[in-house]
């Protein structure tokens, strides 16, 4: 935890929600950079450095992945499965950030080795607090895998 900029990959299809998350981290004290993709396919391509994301320098592996579940094209759970079965990628902590409280989704996510499961709160204050604490925990306290 030096002056390194920490990279977060945000996989979120809803523009407004993405905006909300990004604003929270903007004002955060831990320095960070958020890369946002809007669907599951783009997420995989980014992580595997495929297609548009082949430039490694421009597209570094993130230190944290924030993953929404309901995504167009490739579903969030599938993305999760891909990440956690890849030798290279599974080290990266994945935090599911979704509006779904469904038990089915929670169970499935943990079966696929998700590191944490968060449900977006409706309440603005709660949302803000959660984002803050999220930032502090994963980017502050938590030791990076690499």
């Amino acid at each position: 935890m030096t002056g390194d900029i920490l990279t977060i990959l945000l996989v979120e299809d809803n523009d407004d929600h993405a905006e909300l998350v990004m604003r929270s981290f903007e004002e955060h004290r831990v320095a960070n950079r958020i890369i946002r993709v809007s669907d599951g396919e783009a997420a995989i391509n980014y992580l595997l450095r495929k297609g548009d994301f082949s430039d490694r320098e421009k597209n570094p592996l993130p230190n944290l992945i924030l993953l929404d579940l309901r995504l167009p094209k490739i579903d969030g759970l599938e993305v999760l499965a891909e990440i956690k079965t890849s030798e290279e990628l599974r080290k990266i902590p994945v935090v599911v950030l979704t509006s779904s409280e469904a038990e089915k989704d929670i169970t499935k996510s943990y079966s696929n080795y998700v590191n944490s499961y968060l449900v977006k709160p409706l309440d603005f204050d709660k949302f803000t607090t959660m984002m803050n604490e999220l930032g502090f925990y994963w980017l502050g306290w938590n030791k990076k895998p690499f």
Partner: protein
Amino acid sequence: MKIIEFLPFPVVILGEDSKIQYINAEFIKVFGYTLQDIPTGKEWFTLAYPDREYREKVISDWEESMVEVDICKSVIRNFDVMCKDGRIRNILFHLVKMENNKYFIISEDITERKKLQETLKQKLIFLTEPVVDTDNITFRDLFHIEEIQRIQDTFSEATGVASIITEIDGTPITRPSNFCRLCNDIIRQTPKGRANCYHSDAVIGKYNPSGPIVQPCLSGSLWDAGASIRVGNRHVANWLIGQVINEDMNMETMMAYAREIGADEKEYYRALKEVKRMPVEQFKKVSEALFLIANQLSLLAMQNIKQARDIAERKKTEEQLRMNENRLKTLLTLGRMQERPLEEILDFTMEKAVELTGSKLGYLAFLNEDETVLTMHSWSKTAMKECAICQFPSVYKVAETGLWGEAVRQRKPVITNDYKKDNPAKKGYPPGHVELKRHMNIPVFSGDKIVALAGVGNKGDDYDHLDVQQLTLLMEGMWGLLQRKNAGDIIKKQIVELETKNAELERFTYTVSHDLKSPLITIKGFLGHIISDVRKGNFDRMESDIKRISNAVDKMEYLLKDLLELSRIGRIINPSSKFSMSSSVKEVAELVNGFLEEKHVKFSYDENMPFVYADRIRIREVWQNLIENAVKYTGNQDKPEINIGYKNTDRGDVFYIKDNGTGIEEKYYKKIFGLFEKLEQKSEGTGIGLAIVKRIIELHGGHIWVESEGKDKGSTFYFNIPLKEGKK
């Protein structure tokens, strides 16, 4: 008089002008009438023969007898007499004329004897009916030849005559016993002689009920006798004895025979001298004995047949029992087959029907509601093998069917044991062209209605009422099972439907709540930012934030509207009508014309598409959605084109809409029809369009699917819906 009084038969003495002079005690005992009842013949006739016609016949017969009878010539008559107590006895009247113009009548009650005779006659008829199919019972069938040989040899030895048993045409069955050298070594060694011997044996041994035939042999003139062996009234063998000479023989005539058959005369003469001599009387006695024994053998034969018949009867009964047991087992097995598929049940029943009736083939056909159309459903396995053209189902009008449809028309089982014979109702075999010799079919009832026709054919022997019984019981069992199965299956289907609906509802609720929650998060989130910004006095992002909120609210509105639409499709069904698909497309094209022009889309459609039978409004919606989608997903295409038509594919005849836009990857083919699924996150709409389209098509009983060659290669949506009424 005293004697007559105590004779154990009824006696009447008739005087002149038919006055009854005397009747004995026995008469009164037997007939009941006294002298007071019958003073003259007239009263007798009236009382004894109450039926006028019969009485007249008796009287005229009686008058004839009176003329016929004479002192040394008695007359016998036989009448049914009504006694005083009402009983009818069969009486044999012996009429005797006496010296002083009186008549003496003895009566014999032969009622019992007649009954016995009748019974015997019946038995005889019964016994002489064939046990097996063929009428060819031969001597060998009835007797053990070695036994008979022994009897024959013993008889020969005991009586000193030659003996042989032959077929009715004279061909020997047993070995000759005691044959003289003349016959054995000389006459029978020449072809002519042998032929004559056989012929003679045939003649002398022929059927003669009153006694043996005794006469010179027709081949050499030695004395022969013959008796026939019969079964009932069928002559099956001849028993010949003889080869003796008596004092009446003429040497010259006999030697002439030697010349006739071409035998050596010297040898012939020598052998002739050796022939046994027997007096006529003795030979006649031996012949009588032969006759008696032959009759005994005949009786023995009858008994053998009776035994064989009894055994056959018993075997048949056993067979029947076995079949009944088999049928019970079958019904038990059938009863447990409720969960098996329909085809399996029908096939099983079919095979058992064939088995239980001893047939070679069987079939099952179902009848429609008003009993006018038969649908052939299945054939037993053997039949399938044997017939060349067995395709199912085959449909026939009952009125046009031949013999096999009779059971429906007559509403009862029909047996035909000589199918080949010409029959007015016969119009050919049940189709399949298997050759039929015997056929039986039964209607299967459900209440009063005939619901099916079950038939079997080519049993080894004739079909009878027992076969009908077997088949009927089996079919009723099967039908009952099918009823229960049907009920069971319907319930199962309903459960599955409910479960599916439940699952659908759950998924639906999940999706909806999630998708409605999203905009709420947006609204609340940005409201929070606005409030916080206001407090800080920061108005930079205010306007855009407010816009976001407003959009989110709109989104919720669209969402709710679409949901309502989707649910309405399931609930409110507009009546279907027949309309041209092309005219439907035309209407929609006009509606979205502005949209098309705006995006510079070249739009074309087939103007000769078929008529369909569907919900006109909903089909319009289908086209609208599909066209809008095509326009939305033109992607990088600068010359977007949309084409609508109707064509034949490997999935049948379908409607299609083809575009040259962004295309769809195969992995998303199914996903796009999901609720609120959008491939392009940024595209307009809630993602419910295709879900609605799919729902509409499926409610019409059709299918919709998409094919695309990949990215930027455009997509084609295909769907089918019924073109005619009633195909849902």
